[in-house]
């Protein structure tokens, strides 16, 4: 029965957020907090020789100065992955709280704890840090060369990890006569998440335990990392996650929670707060991996893919963080999206002296789609095929099953999505009209598809826990370890709970905040997993709660359980549909019963041993002003099959956000570094060109709803997919307009100027 799922109900947190009543980390922090400010390294690579703290310690208001010479020698991992009990699968522990070995411009070398922010900053500016500098390297392939600066001793040639994938016989297959060879290099940039609330946290000791309140996506994971970093038993750490202002994967890492907690221990357990500035967020949190991809395809003139080579070089930056999983996910998509019998695929994650790259919306897929989908249009140009027809011929067919994940493409998703997108943008007519254009301003149309799989099974743990507690009035609280980070999961979950338990939505109260002392275990917001994964534990816990309720209903009504139902908050006799009593009356009687008082709850953990493909596409129409080197987006359409929609309005909003992110990725966003010093050049929201409303066309969203058979609610990933195919669709539209195959993103005017000049479209 579905009363709430599938409807565009208002967000459960809309009122609190729109009126400013919702409490975020900084709202919750008591004003008595000491403030921690970090001294960031001003070199890209080297060792701290000394830090003179004398002057900083005399600044009025400064309480304590701590340096990289003071921290415990407890290397810890930061990635927001479920912990593995198998040491071979544990994340690389390469961080200290403060670092004497400086590995990027912005690394943490000292902190000043003071009574207020001004004193703390004065203290930071008064520190005198001397370094023994070492050569540094920013480029991923240069970092792999022999003799390149060594960033982590235990990783020769800076290679964190290399994996490969082989199928058939590539070398033999390419000997077939008459094949067309298409080769391309595709570069994607270092970008940052730019969530609206910078990361911050506060920490204090309470009854011998460490309490941390943090703007994080992954409270249970961060609790574990704080324990590891401070050498505390995990039960001595309590992590609380309030409302947060977005994360997009940056907060799927332990960021400054360990450092903040340690600072508290160093001032006697006093309350300390550490809040990042935007400048720090850009450089000293996490970024998206810049990945350079090399693809060679051998194709028959009819568009059949015969053999393909794929190499990806992923710029890991200074620390392992999420590490190789990101580029490996991208490589994993390559053989699946366009199946081909002969493959040679390799990918490397390589340390450089750039900010550490971690998780970011799409987790390697936006990079892989930019390279892969750009390359598909390059093939189309070489063999003279319409990009849409090539995709119809070569994309993953219905019935495809991935051997590793066992994911299956059950329905004709790709064609259905492309049909819908084509119709929305009038693809065929525009493709015809935009042939053979001349003149300075030209229009073009392009598309790209994307591959995404929900959640992390079978690579990592997938489970979810849920607790439901019935109130006297028949309403209930529920909580899970899965986190609301702005995407709307509290609302989607409330809808699921209402339907699964059999109560009206108004009687469902979500406990939004996670507190590791009381919230059931769950690993948090990442991998677009929560609606899918949380659905299992909600369905299972709701079933358990219903069973308890109906047993008590049996005791109270004397009807057999088999003849009872709970629907819309009423206990109903199934045989005649008569309402026997309300759930509220049942709960009140149960709780206050003098014979057998029962508080009615249920709590279960669901084991999820399945996963689901979530596919879709983007169509883009552009106008390219060649002399001005400018691209104007005229029209953009995303179509997704994320299964059954839980809340269509929220789903559409989710896609709008991802499209906006894809526009920035495609056209303007890039964190830049000074080649001479390794210093970040544009780590602020003026110089880093996040796209604005004024850069967006009307964003159009379509859905194809093929219910996912493995999900109790028929749903699958939608969090990250909207950010995956927009950038290559823009690139392909520019190719269609101008004939110029751009080899990188973002496609800024600077890039267009160079490439239009090379193509002879600009002659200065």
């Amino acid at each position, binding site marked *: 029965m579905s009363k709430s799922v599938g409807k565009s109900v208002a967000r459960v947190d809309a009122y609190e957020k729109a009126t400013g009543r919702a409490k975020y980390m900084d709202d919750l922090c008591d004003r008595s907090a000491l403030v921690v400010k970090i001294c960031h390294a001003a070199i890209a690579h080297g060792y701290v020789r000394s830090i003179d703290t004398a002057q900083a310690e005399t600044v009025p208001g400064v309480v304590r100065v701590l340096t990289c010479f003071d921290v415990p020698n407890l290397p810890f991992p930061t990635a927001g992955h479920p912990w593995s009990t198998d040491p071979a699968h544990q994340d690389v522990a390469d961080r200290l709280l403060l670092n004497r070995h400086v590995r990027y411009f912005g690394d943490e070398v000292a902190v000043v704890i003071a009574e*207020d*922010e*001004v004193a703390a*900053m*004065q203290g930071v*500016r008064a520190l005198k840090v001397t370094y023994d500098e070492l050569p540094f390297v920013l480029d991923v392939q240069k970092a792999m060369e022999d003799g390149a600066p060594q960033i982590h001793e235990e990783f020769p040639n800076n290679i964190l990890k290399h994996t490969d994938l082989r199928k058939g016989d590539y070398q033999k297959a390419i000997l077939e006569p008459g094949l067309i060879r298409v080769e391309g290099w595709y570069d994607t940039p270092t970008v940052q998440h730019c969530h609206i609330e910078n990361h911050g946290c506060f920490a204090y000791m309470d009854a011998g335990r460490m309490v941390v309140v943090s703007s994080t996506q992954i409270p249970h994971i961060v609790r574990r990392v704080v324990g590891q970093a401070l050498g505390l038993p995990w039960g001595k750490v309590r992590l609380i996650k309030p409302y947060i202002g977005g994360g997009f994967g940056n907060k799927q890492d332990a960021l400054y929670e360990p450092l903040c907690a340690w600072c508290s221990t160093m001032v006697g357990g006093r309350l300390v707060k550490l809040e990042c500035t935007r400048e720090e967020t850009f450089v000293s949190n996490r970024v998206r991996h810049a990945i350079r991809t090399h693809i060679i395809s051998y194709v028959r003139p009819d568009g059949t893919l015969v053999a393909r080579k794929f190499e990806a070089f992923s710029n890991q930056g200074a620390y392992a963080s999420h590490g190789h999983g990101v580029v490996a996910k991208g490589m994993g998509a390559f053989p699946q999206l366009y199946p081909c019998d002969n493959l040679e695929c390799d990918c490397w994650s390589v340390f450089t002296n750039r900010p550490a790259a971690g998780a970011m919306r799409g987790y390697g897929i936006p990079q892989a789609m930019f390279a892969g989908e750009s390359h598909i249009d390059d093939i189309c140009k070489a063999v003279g095929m319409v990009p849409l027809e090539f995709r119809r011929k070569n994309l993953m067919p219905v019935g495809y099953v991935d051997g590793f994940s066992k994911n299956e493409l059950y329905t004709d998703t790709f064609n259905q999505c492309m049909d819908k997108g084509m119709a929305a943008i009038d693809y065929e007519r525009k493709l015809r009209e935009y042939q053979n254009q001349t003149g300075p301003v030209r229009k073009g149309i392009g598309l790209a598809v994307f591959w995404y799989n929900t959640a992390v099974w079978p690579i990592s743990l997938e489970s979810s826990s849920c607790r439901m507690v019935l109130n006297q009035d028949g309403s209930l609280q529920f909580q899970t370890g899965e986190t609301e980070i702005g995407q709307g999961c509290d609302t989607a979950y409330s809808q699921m709970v209402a339907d699964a338990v059999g109560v009206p939505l108004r009687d469902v109260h979500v406990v939004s905040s996670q507190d590791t002392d009381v919230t059931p275990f769950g690993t948090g917001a990442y991998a677009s997993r929560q609606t899918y994964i949380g659905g299992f534990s909600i369905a299972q816990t709701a079933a358990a709660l219903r069973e308890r309720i109906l047993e008590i209903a049996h005791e109270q009504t004397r009807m057999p359980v088999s003849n009872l139902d709970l629907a819309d908050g009423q206990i109903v006799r199934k045989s005649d549909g008569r309402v026997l009593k309300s759930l509220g009356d049942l709960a009140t009687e149960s709780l206050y019963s003098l014979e057998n008082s029962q508080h009615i709850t249920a709590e279960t953990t669901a084991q999820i041993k399945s996963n689901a493909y979530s596919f879709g596409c983007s169509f883009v129409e552009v106008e390219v002003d060649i*002399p*001005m*080197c400018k691209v104007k987006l005229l029209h953009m359409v995303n179509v997704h099959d994320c299964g059954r929609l839980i809340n269509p309005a929220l789903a559409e909003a989710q896609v709008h956000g991802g499209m906006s992110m894809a526009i920035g990725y495609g056209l*303007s966003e890039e964190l*830049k570094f*000074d080649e001479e010093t390794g210093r970040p*050049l*544009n780590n602020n*929201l*003026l*110089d880093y*060109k*996040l*796209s*604005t*409303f*004024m*850069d967006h066309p009307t964003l159009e969203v379509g859905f194809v709803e093929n219910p996912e058979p493995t999900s109790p609610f028929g749903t699958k990933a939608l969090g990250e997919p909207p950010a995956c195919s927009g950038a290559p669709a823009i690139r392909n539209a520019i190719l269609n307009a101008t004939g110029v195959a751009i080899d990188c993103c973002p496609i*800024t*005017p*600077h890039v267009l*100027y160079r490439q239009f000049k090379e193509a002879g479209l*600009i002659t*200065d």
Partner: protein
Amino acid sequence: MYDMKALYQAESVQDAVALRLKHPEAQIIAGGSDVLVQMREGKRAGAELISVYGLDALRGVSLEADGTLRIGSLTSFSHITRDPLIQKYVNVLGEAVDQVGGPQIRNIGTIGGNTCNGVTSADSASTLFAYDATVELTGQDGVRRVPIQEFYIRAGKVDIRAGELQTAILISRESYEHTFGHYIKYAMRSAMDIATLGTSVNVRLSDDKKYVERARVAFGVAGPIPLRAETAEKTAAGARLSAELAEAFGAAVREDIHPRDSWRAARDFRMHIAVESAKRAFAEAVRLAGGEL
């Protein structure tokens, strides 16, 4: 939380002048959209500030007896854009400052702050250069008037002397009468950005709309301070309107501008955009003036 040593709030222009003399190290603050950002970055940490923001006498646009257009230094960008005198006589200035930052910045930011900052990218500056504006400074000894081209000394440095306060920007009738202008802000995105290049062109056509009587073009970010492109102006002066004239006008700016290589943009790219922008801004100004190319 700002690292501010002291804040003095001026009660009047005379009071501001007295405060300037009493606290020579203090920084004047108007809307604060630059000064507060710099303080937060640590560049002006610990500074003393003299706020002139309360001086309503310095707000608004008026016409003086001789037809000079007077823009009070504290007039905000959004007020300039919506001012009927600006719209009537130098609409291009209103359009130019309407491209500063976003709505909030345009509500707080002032034309005085924009020019006193001394940066080449200021959206008001190239149009003020193209209209030969005059800067009015008030000090202990009264009022001093400086042509805007002399007001800008070098990047970040303008001609404000001890005890002085910029009180108005003036545009003479001779400059604006019968002229039509167009500004092209070339930036990396369509809002919330600083100019990679700013191009402001204005033209006055002959009565029959066939000839250019006078053309002026000024650039921001084509040098360390805003500058005029006189070779282009001479190319157009007295010339008959044609598509070739627009091309020649654009090409001629190469003689006068000297953009630099920086991580924000390469010199050859800026040069290319300057030529194209000058051509397009000229064409649009001619169109607004009723001419045809």
